[in-house]
């Protein structure tokens, strides 16, 4: 009997273990699958003719003649809608005051909706904001906007709670000049916008237009690159030197133990405290730059990743077989020459692994750069200006775009695009590190 119980517990443990692992894998999928699939939608999506107009207008890319031919057809499909709007405006002026008062707000919404969906009416002075110069560039968003025109969202309030009700607008305007708008939108939307599969790989490198409404995430990607590279430029020499010192030169004693302790402690400091320190020390005390800058951010990030670099380098150096060192010394090489010409090259793959992982960490961190480097809008920073210019960065701008921005819902695809790009960069770096580590293991096995 007891045996059965024991066996049961054994199976329970196995089951529990698999469940835990399965749960973790599932969660990883739950997070990554939407990020990647919707992020992919920032690069490949069903775009409309407005997207092509925007590309031509803002970036000068595209085939003008083919676009013109297409636009001629598109305008033909849209004409009834614009004419209906113009005609209804005249009709509105001629209406009795009561009816006009009833219909005017709804008409304003419809007209606004048409402008947002298809772009500004021909002949009307162009709006000032770039985002209003073009209609919807993505097909699924266009469908949403079309629904916004066709249906009015109202709420039915009752004691049991509130219910969202979609009331079609068409009946309100039946018999007026505006009626064709609704039938045309329902029937001919595809002809008005001509959706097609659009591949936009330059999303990665284009600058953003009008607070990310159009364009890409180039400044952010570049900023992340600058910050992580800059951090490594500072952390790698410091880290390797420190690792060499700890492994090869240091004599164990209270001083060295203290230094090791310090490095371990640095590893445990929370990331926001690094940000505080970066602001208080690099910007306010040392004044490395007159305000936020890539330099200050990179220095702060360097401190963050330094312990990792030191640890990884130490492990790599320790893993080099003693025979190498002894052989070199037997040949008469001094300690420095041994280290420089024998040990470091042998430890290089391991050190590189640590560097690559740290770069991934630096690219993904947000808290240290909030006060030292990140801005929400900026041009791509020139390499000559990194010492004094702040920069957008993927990590912080993702936060900014999904909480602080004025049109969060409109830009979901950009947020997912940023998230996917950031995760891809970090995962690619980590994958490279894993492959490197496998190569090191194989080499050391002989």
């Amino acid at each position, binding site marked *: 009997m007891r045996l059965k119980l024991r066996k049961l517990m054994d199976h329970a443990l196995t089951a529990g273990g698999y469940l835990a692992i399965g749960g973790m894998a599932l969660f990883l999928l739950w997070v990554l699958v939407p990020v990647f699939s919707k992020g992919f939608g920032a690069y490949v999506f069903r775009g409309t003719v407005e997207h092509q107009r925007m590309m031509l207008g803002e970036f000068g890319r595209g085939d003008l003649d083919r676009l013109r031919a297409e636009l001629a057809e598109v305008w033909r499909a849209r004409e009834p809608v614009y004419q209906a709007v113009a005609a209804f405006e005249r009709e509105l002026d001629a209406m009795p005051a009561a009816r006009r008062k009833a219909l005017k707000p709804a008409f304003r919404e419809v007209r606004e909706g048409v402008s947002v969906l298809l772009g500004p009416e021909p002949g009307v002075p162009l*709006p*000032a*904001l*770039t985002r*209003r110069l073009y209609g919807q560039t993505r097909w699924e968003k266009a469908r949403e906007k079309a629904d*916004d025109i066709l249906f009015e*969202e109202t*709420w039915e*309030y009752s*004691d049991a*709670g*509130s*219910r*969202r009700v979609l009331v079609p607008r068409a009946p309100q305007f039946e018999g007026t000049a505006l009626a064709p708008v609704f039938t045309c939108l329902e029937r001919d939307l595809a002809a008005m916008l001509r959706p097609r599969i659009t591949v936009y790989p330059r999303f990665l490198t284009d600058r953003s*237009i*009008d*607070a990310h409404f159009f364009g890409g995430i180039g400044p952010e990607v570049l900023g992340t690159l600058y910050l992580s590279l800059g951090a490594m430029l500072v952390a790698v020499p410091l880290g390797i030197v420190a690792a060499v010192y700890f492994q090869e030169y240091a004599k164990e004693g209270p001083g060295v133990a203290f230094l090791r302790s310090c490095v371990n402690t640095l590893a445990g400091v929370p990331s926001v405290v690094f940000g505080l320190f970066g602001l208080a020390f690099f*910007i*306010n005390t040392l004044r490395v730059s*007159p*305000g*936020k800058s890539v330099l200050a951010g990179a220095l702060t990030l360097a401190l963050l990743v330094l312990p990792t670099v030191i640890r990884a380098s130490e492990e790599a150096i320790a893993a080099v077989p003693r025979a190498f060192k002894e052989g070199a010394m037997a040949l008469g090489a001094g300690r420095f020459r041994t280290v420089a010409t024998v040990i470091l090259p042998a430890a290089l793959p391991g050190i590189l692994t640590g560097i690559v992982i740290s770069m991934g960490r630096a690219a993904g961190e947000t808290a240290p750069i909030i006060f030292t480097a*990140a*801005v*929400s*809008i*900026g*041009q791509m920073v020139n390499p000559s200006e990194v010492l004094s*210019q*702040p920069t957008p960065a993927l990590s912080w701008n993702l936060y*900014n775009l999904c*909480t*602080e*921005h*004025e*049109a*969060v*819902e409109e830009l979901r695809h950009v947020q997912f695009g940023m998230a996917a790009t950031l995760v891809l960069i970090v995962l690619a770096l980590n994958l490279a590190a894993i492959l490197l580590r496998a190569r090191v293991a194989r080499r050391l096995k002989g």
Partner: protein
Amino acid sequence: MRQNVLMSVVLGISVMAAHAQDKLVMDGSTTVGPIAKAFAETYMRQNPGVNITVSESGSGNGAKALLNGTCDIANLSRHLKESEKKAMSEKGVRPVAHVVAFDALPVIVHPSNRVKGLTLDQIRDIYTGKITNWKEVGGGDQRIVVISRDTNSGTFETFKELVLGNDSKIVASAEYTGSNGGVRQRVQMTKGAIGYAGPGFVDRSVKALEVNGVVPSAESVIAKQYPISRELFMFTNGEPAADSLAAKLLGMSRSEKGREIIEEIGYVPVPEK
């Protein structure tokens, strides 16, 4: 030949020197942020080679940046505080206020909330915790989730000054977010929420309430009927020179195009006198 080379060198240097001047840093309020960003973009489009960066870390941070000289224009959605003015005069910074737009601060709730309007007193009671359920003010039986801006915000200061009064404390269970966009997002997501955010952030996903029976709109702001309205500022250190980048950017708020931008974003442009 030598003269040509000299000329091109001089031209080159002056071009580079001119280039070195074309930078502007703006920092501050998330309310004024959309206006600043739109102005910056429009200007950069018309004048390539200029780099204007905009940070939105809150009115308090904008004032501090102006004080420390780390920005050229500070966007604020409130007046400078006494402590900030004192610090600036100690440091030799002379802040000059430029009114960029007017703003009616809407009080927003989730669209499923059947309450249409509240009085100023009711809003105050909700925020100080005296009223905790929507049914006390004509809504359904639902706990009120109070959303406020963090203390870094000019929007918060305005709300405190005009609605709460300087003595009241916001209820401890109030949730704080760091930006207008954050408030809008919280209210949109939470059925029982109430919050306040700049009009540029009010869209169809939230509902703006009438306050004391007045609907927030451009007309009610200009007519001074809407009780929670304020000016939006851009501060500079001293009056900027007439042809400097800062002056041009500030002048946009009075230009035709700038007015359109402000209106399109949802604020009220300064009326033409």
